[in-house]
């Protein structure tokens, strides 16, 4: 799909340009914990900040340090070099120490006219759900005031319904790999996930439906091994493509630019409370505490359902959250009989691809595939 190609290689894509022409406001966010429905309900274009595999960090390194995650540095670089000048505002979240630093430096160096901080709890219980609900209400108030928009329950419900529909279609596409013949590469799924934060919801749903329609006609792919991949915050579609070219196809993942995007279980019906549950209950990120078993079980379940032969867990150099969690996951998944490869990587480092390929090739051989 040509449109998908453009969305996953261009920051300022056609939808962004169209929004500008139409006078629509665009607000950037980076973390999966950001309830994009609030922006949708406000008529604002939510754009997920990403770097699309660009590894240049020269300017960003003058702010963040070399001891910070390459993905955050790469995003900051694009903020500093003007690639994100189309944003009318930025929403910060306390995803991790690196991300907090990225936002602080961005706002320091290139102040955005609208800058709002959503304080996402690290625990899930009734108190934190209430706190997060209030955070969403504060976001609604801030957007309403700054952009002079009206966000009511009806609009929020419509936005939530739209995202539920998207999740349902995405789930079908995602799980279509779990049968006998795989017709979609894992990197294509990742491309779809990355595109999710680059275009308006209605257009995205339409694109997904078109994509779903095209799958059936595709031929079955050669598959040397079925791989689960997870870990690092990354949108490096090319990296996954390169690794899949070795024959191991990604059949499920736990990336935050991946399958976790469409986890939406919630019980509440009142829209803001429902958003609080959708985004906090389903935040299966290692930044959350007292919930390791939930994350591990989620992966074990995906591995079983996708019939994965092995798992490759990545972490960006200097990411402690994934770096530590991956070690525990490896121990636990191996106890369940699943071979696991841990890979530390630099974000967007093309020069490192040879090493990564060698490791994955060796892993495929270990899987006897």
């Amino acid at each position: 799909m040509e449109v998908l190609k453009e969305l996953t290689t261009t920051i300022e894509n056609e939808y962004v340009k169209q929004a500008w022409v139409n006078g629509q406001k665009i607000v950037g966010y980076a973390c999966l914990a950001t309830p994009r429905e609030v922006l949708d309900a406000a008529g604002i274009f939510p754009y997920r900040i990403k770097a699309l595999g660009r590894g240049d960090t020269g300017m960003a390194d003058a702010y963040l340090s070399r001891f910070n995650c390459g993905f955050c540095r790469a995003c900051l670089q694009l903020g500093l070099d003007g690639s994100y000048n189309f944003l009318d505002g930025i929403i910060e979240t306390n995803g991790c120490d690196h991300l907090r630093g990225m936002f602080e430096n961005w706002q320091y160096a290139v102040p955005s006219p609208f800058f709002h901080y959503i304080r996402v709890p690290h625990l899930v219980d009734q108190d934190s759900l209430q706190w997060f609900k209030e955070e969403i209400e504060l976001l609604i108030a801030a957007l309403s005031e700054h952009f002079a928009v009206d966000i009511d329950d009806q609009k929020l419900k419509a936005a939530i319904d739209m995202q539920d529909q998207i999740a349902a279609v995405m789930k079908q596409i995602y799980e279509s790999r779990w049968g006998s013949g795989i017709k979609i590469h894992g990197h294509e799924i990742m491309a779809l996930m990355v595109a999710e934060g680059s275009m308006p919801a209605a257009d995205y749903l339409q694109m997904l439906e078109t994509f779903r329609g095209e799958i059936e006609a595709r031929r079955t792919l050669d598959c040397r091994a079925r791989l689960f991949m997870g870990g690092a915050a990354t949108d490096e579609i090319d990296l996954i493509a390169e690794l899949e070219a070795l024959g191991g196809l990604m059949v499920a993942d736990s990336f935050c630019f991946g399958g976790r995007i469409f986890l939406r279980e919630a019980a509440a019906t009142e829209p803001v409370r429902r958003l609080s549950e959708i985004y906090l209950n389903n935040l299966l990120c290692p930044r959350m505490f007292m919930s390791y078993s939930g994350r591990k079980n989620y992966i074990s379940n995906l591995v079983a359902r996708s019939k994965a032969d092995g798992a490759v867990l990545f972490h960006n150099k200097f990411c402690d959250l994934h770096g530590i969690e991956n070690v525990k996951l490896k121990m636990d998944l191996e106890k369940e009989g699943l071979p696991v490869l841990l890979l530390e990587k630099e974000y967007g480092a093309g020069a490192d691809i040879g090493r990564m390929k060698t490791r994955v090739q060796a892993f495929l051989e270990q899987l006897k595939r």
Partner: protein
Amino acid sequence: MDNRTGLKKTYSAGLFSRVHALFSILKKLPNHISEEELDGLIKVLPEDSANSMKSLLKPAIQQASMPFLHMLSAALDETAAAKEQGRKVVLAPFNFPPEIIHAFDNLVPITTEVLTTLGVVSLEGQGERYWEQAMGLGLPDHLCSANTIDLGSMLSGMDFEPDAIISGCVGSCDVNSKTHEFVSLLLGLPQIALEKPPDNSERGFNYFKNNYIKMIGELEELAGEKLKEEKLRLVAEKVNRCTELYHDLWELKKQVPCPVPGIFSLFVCATRFAMWGRDEGIHTLEACLKVSRQNYESADYKSREERARVLWIYLSYYYDLVKFYDWMEEKNISNMGDALQWAFPEPLDLTSKETILDGMIRSAWNNVMTRQMGAASMSQRWIEDIVYIIREWGVNGTIYCGHHSCKQTWSVFSVTRNEVLKRTGVPTLGLQGDSWIRSMTPMSVIQEEVEQFVNNVINKSNRRRRRRSTG
């Protein structure tokens, strides 16, 4: 092989047991030892331990270091004896104030970073073998050595194990909280997570307070006892005495030359992290104050040239006391200490159990690192504190040690350095190294950089300022 962690046992004793064994001997030392006796002691100790004792027990500060060693020894003894006495040991990171644990009869607090530092300071081979042990599990090399050294020892299955772990850094340091979580999961220990939201408002405080109250409930369950007002009050009274002494030392630091020896910052923070609200903590701080006052009144000390007043804006280096604290002193550089002292404690209101608890919660909210890195803006609160202290103590140069693992401070260091310079005119030297692992950056390199900074930046800008003021 430890069944839970899969780690092969490659040595015979863990960090805690070795440190405790050494302190069992040190606590037997008389309150005063002569230089000759110190020489004798140093000769029988292994090189790494001897090096630290040379610095800790030197005559000029011995009056304070003896109570300090006794305080640490008491903390280690209590931890070691806890199981026999039917008490539970609670391990917590440095930013978790221990006084609440001291208020339980059945609980004993011990601090990860204090144990690591004791290991690095007093053991032959420092903490290296335990770090390597943790790396052997596949953990990344960018973890914090302050946590990983002690926890690595625990993971070996050959060391003491606490009965519960408090993750007190949730919201202010990812690596610290995640490492503690990892150990609790691997060893199957109960974990209590105390989250601090990055929100400086009363709403943020109330959320934190609610978390803290829930934590007390979990501690009560662990201890098998309710938190008693009487015991809490007793601890609170001693907390207030510690706070008073802390502020007295703070005031003395304003004097030129600074009469408070640099190494006392280590004594103060160890007291804050482990024995705040205990008699042993009070004795240590009283002794530090006594020595500092004697210095202040001594003609010799007053006539000392002070080339620079240097503040370490986050961590210091803790692996070589002689080449760090003593060397700076020899060079007439006043070491004003590091951010680990910036707890800004306030006296507790002793009116009722509620007011005492409210004060303790505020103390935890304002404790080191939590206060700065757990703030709404990491850089803003950090900058404000640095600027305040520069003005309070007349600091003329600041240094960021660049501990590799401090991703949060590293991420806002550039902004911080720029703003500190802009607001105060005081320059900041940015170093790189590991505060607890000597092999990362040799102390000689650090000395060279500090020396150049003092000679070429601080002293030159002082000279320029003087020239400008005299026309």
